[in-house]
């Protein structure tokens, strides 16, 4: 009897939410959230292709939005932020029709999906974009499964809410067992115009950083570490003109962090029954925020990364870079509320939701941990000869090295047959990447075993990239025939971002890949900030010494001074975007086009 009562209550509440949502749409006010943001999702919350042609319709338009009681205008998909949960099936051919009701061009990029490049949705690269009033038909065969997402690739629309989750059901049995699932889409929202945000950062270094080091912190550090040590630390950063608190460009000073479109006050709810196995599909759909996620009181088992099944890893916390996805399984054994806590990397705010047996419950919300500071290792210093770093600094004043093209000056680095990880650190070549690079990582570290700044020191088991091991083997077992090395470069003071010191407008042409070749992509982070690097149209098999079980990633979160490598087999011809997924970095020029041609140079 009791159980039945509960069910009726649940249904009526759902009906109530649906009712309010439709009222909101009619009156043109209040919170327009996707249904799954309220109470998890049943069938009615999910958008699935319909009919013989597997058609699914999406409409992009301006909508009113309410974030924790404050209203603004967002760009919604089918009237909500985030957009509807799109659910596809592996093996079907789909037709996704996207109608643009905005006054400007728009687009949808299906993040992490392997498809013909004309369907990839990057204006100016794969197609012309969707003009106001027009409808674009995305047709492609669905050849993979897992958790993904979709978002605008036009201007700064992504920051305005133009994103949504996408789940592809496997054709065969899902190796992951679960009783219930929820997408957990993390994102960031600002009530400022994102175009103002970009201008502010261009004009003032650290505009949104209200966690800089002050006199007060200096005296605290003196009392903890002694005057000499504290003074040395402060002056060495000042000498390099670097801020040890450069953790995020845009921070909680303007951002409200969202979980499925809800601010921390509005507490997104996900329901469970005791003993159930719940699959949480985390997606970081932020424009500028890296999150550290944990659920106090629950262990999480990571089963999928970037839509690809991995060997289960039991952890207590994980960092999720922008555009990455992680599926975790949790099994609450008690009938109580658990907080899903996603702290921004710089600790300037958090997104939060609650996993509970009943709606409207809440558990204690943890306090934000103190913001960490960058170390000399993040600056690419050699930790073994730290005392000599005074001499290295002078190099920074050296005039620009006018070296063209790829940095291939690393003599330490053997071209063939090695994983690229044997020597640690690897020394930087002579190219200092010009004025667009404030610094370079003289020493480049592997760091695949490090959880990242501010993590791993409070006793929790935190996911590291070395934990990722693919469940299914990669099909291409060939050794790489060649290497392509790109350096992530930037100048926070001038707010310039680039690869190899060249903003996209400065490059002459695309990076050339040949179809079906096997290559090693080496990415070196010369900056002191994390960058989530996304390669469209093909997998990056992260070289973390798992051989054919190296994990396949569409986005790699690269730590400061890290040297990371991935094996790539470009199977689909065409022009593919390759960029930093911090929206503002991409817009500032940290973007390239990879062109995959056949032996004759054709891309069609």
């Amino acid at each position: 009897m009791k159980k039945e009562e509960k069910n009726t209550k649940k249904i009526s509440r759902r009906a109530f939410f649906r009712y309010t949502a439709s009222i909101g749409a009619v009156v043109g006010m209040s919170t327009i959230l996707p249904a799954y943001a309220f109470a998890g999702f049943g069938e009615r919350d999910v958008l699935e292709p319909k009919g013989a042609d597997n058609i699914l319709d999406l409409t992009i338009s301006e909508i009113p939005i309410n974030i924790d009681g404050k209203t603004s205008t967002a760009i919604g998909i089918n009237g909500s932020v985030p957009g509807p949960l799109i659910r596809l099936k592996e093996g079907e051919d789909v037709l996704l029709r996207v109608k643009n009701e905005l006054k400007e061009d728009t687009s949808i990029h299906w993040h992490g999906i392997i498809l013909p490049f004309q369907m990839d949705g990057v204006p100016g690269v794969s197609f012309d974009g969707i003009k106001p009033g027009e409808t674009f038909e995305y047709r492609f065969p669905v050849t993979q499964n897992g958790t993904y997402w979709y978002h605008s690739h036009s201007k700064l629309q992504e920051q305005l809410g133009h994103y949504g989750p996408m789940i592809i059901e496997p054709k065969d049995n899902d190796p992951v067992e679960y009783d219930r699932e929820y997408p957990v889409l993390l994102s960031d929202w600002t009530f400022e115009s994102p175009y103002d945000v970009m201008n502010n950062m261009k004009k003032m270094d650290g505009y949104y950083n209200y966690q800089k080091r002050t006199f007060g912190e200096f005296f605290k550090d003196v009392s903890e570490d002694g005057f000499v040590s504290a003074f040395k630390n402060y002056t060495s950063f000042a000498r390099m003109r670097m801020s040890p608190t450069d953790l995020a460009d845009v921070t909680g000073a303007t951002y409200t962090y969202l979980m499925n479109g809800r601010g921390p006050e509005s507490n997104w709810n996900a329901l469970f029954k005791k003993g159930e196995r719940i699959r949480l599909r985390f997606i970081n759909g932020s424009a500028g925020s890296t999150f550290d996620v944990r659920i106090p009181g629950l262990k999480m088992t990571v089963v999928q990364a970037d839509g690809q099944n991995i060997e289960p890893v039991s952890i207590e916390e994980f960092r999720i870079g922008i555009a990455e996805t992680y599926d975790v399984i949790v099994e609450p054994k008690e009938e109580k509320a658990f907080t899903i806590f996603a702290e921004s990397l710089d600790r300037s705010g958090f997104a939060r939701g609650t996993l509970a047996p009943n709606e409207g419950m809440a558990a204690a919300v943890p306090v934000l941990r103190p913001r960490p500071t960058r170390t000399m290792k993040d600056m690419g210093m050699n930790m073994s000869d730290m005392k000599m770093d005074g001499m290295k600094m002078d190099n920074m004043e050296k005039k620009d090295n006018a070296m063209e093209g790829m940095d291939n000056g690393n003599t330490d680095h053997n071209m063939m047959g090695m994983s690229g990880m044997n020597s640690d650190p690897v020394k930087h070549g002579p190219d200092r990447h010009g004025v667009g690079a404030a610094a370079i990582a003289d020493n480049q570290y592997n760091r695949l075993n490090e959880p990242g700044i501010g993590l791993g020191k409070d006793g929790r088991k935190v996911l590291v990239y070395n934990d990722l091991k693919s469940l299914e083997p990669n099909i291409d077992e060939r050794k790489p025939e060649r290497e392509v090395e790109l350096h992530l470069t930037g100048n926070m003071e001038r707010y310039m971002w680039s690869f190899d010191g060249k903003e996209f407008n400065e490059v002459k042409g695309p990076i050339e890949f040949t179809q079906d070749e096997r290559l090693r992509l080496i990415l070196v982070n010369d900056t002191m900030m994390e960058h989530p690097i996304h390669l469209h149209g093909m997998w990056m098999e992260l070289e973390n010494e798992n051989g054919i079980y190296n994990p396949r990633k569409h986005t790699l979160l690269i730590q400061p001074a890290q040297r990371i490598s991935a094996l790539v087999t470009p199977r689909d011809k065409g022009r593919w975007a390759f960029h930093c997924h911090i929206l503002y970095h991409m817009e500032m020029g940290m973007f390239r086009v990879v062109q995959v041609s056949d032996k004759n140079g054709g891309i069609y």
Partner: protein
Amino acid sequence: MKQVNIIVKRTPKIFSNNIMLKINFQKIALILLPILILTGNSVKAQKAPEFSNKILPDNKTYFYFVADRFEYYSKEGTNPLVWDVQGYYGKDYNKFWFKAEGEALTSEKEGEMEFQGLYSRPVTSYFDVQAGLRYDVAYNSITSNSRAFAVLGLQGLAPYLFEVDGSIAVSEDGDLSGSFEGELDLLMTQRLIIQPRLATSVAVQKVEDFGVGSGLNNIQLGLRLRYEIKREFAPYLGISWNRKLSETADLAKLEGADVSVFGVVAGVRLWY
């Protein structure tokens, strides 16, 4: 009760074959797709745009204006209004940079000011080289003097985070001079900032009309405490000491002007 420990089932061996099949299917689909599209009604989707590097706002033109000092200078005698503004219009690599600095009395007709229009280009990660023209005016109720210069300077962020601006200038009469300015932001709190400032100038030739002597002209030391209500708007209070030196001091003495001036400033730092 469900088995708790095994979350992920081992992939059966056949599965890897399935992947091969899947890929083949994908390839077939890829071959079929253009045909599908050509026969369908979205023919235009087939051709992608030609490669272009002009699709991002990464080479945008910006306008920036900052009034670093805009203040009322309270000292012994007259109390002038002092300003030090600059800004730019341009892109990452090419900018038109303008600067204006001066002081004037509001109560009577007396003031001196300079205006600069410069081409600015980054030469290192932190420094721009700047070249252009400068125009100086000095006036009072009796006379008015002006002269023009060609200027070459270096402006940027020096090690230890000093904002510095140094330049050399040749006047229309061939007189050579130089100036230097440096300031540093020290954070008391996130919004309360102390800014020490030093400015000095030097001249090779004596130019009496402008009260400029040969050698080191003057040294200006200031200390301003500002509060950033917004990043763009920060009122401040401070002290400013201006000491004329060597021959310039002698010229001042002859005119009966003060050689050393100390006073309190109140103003606002703002930018757009």
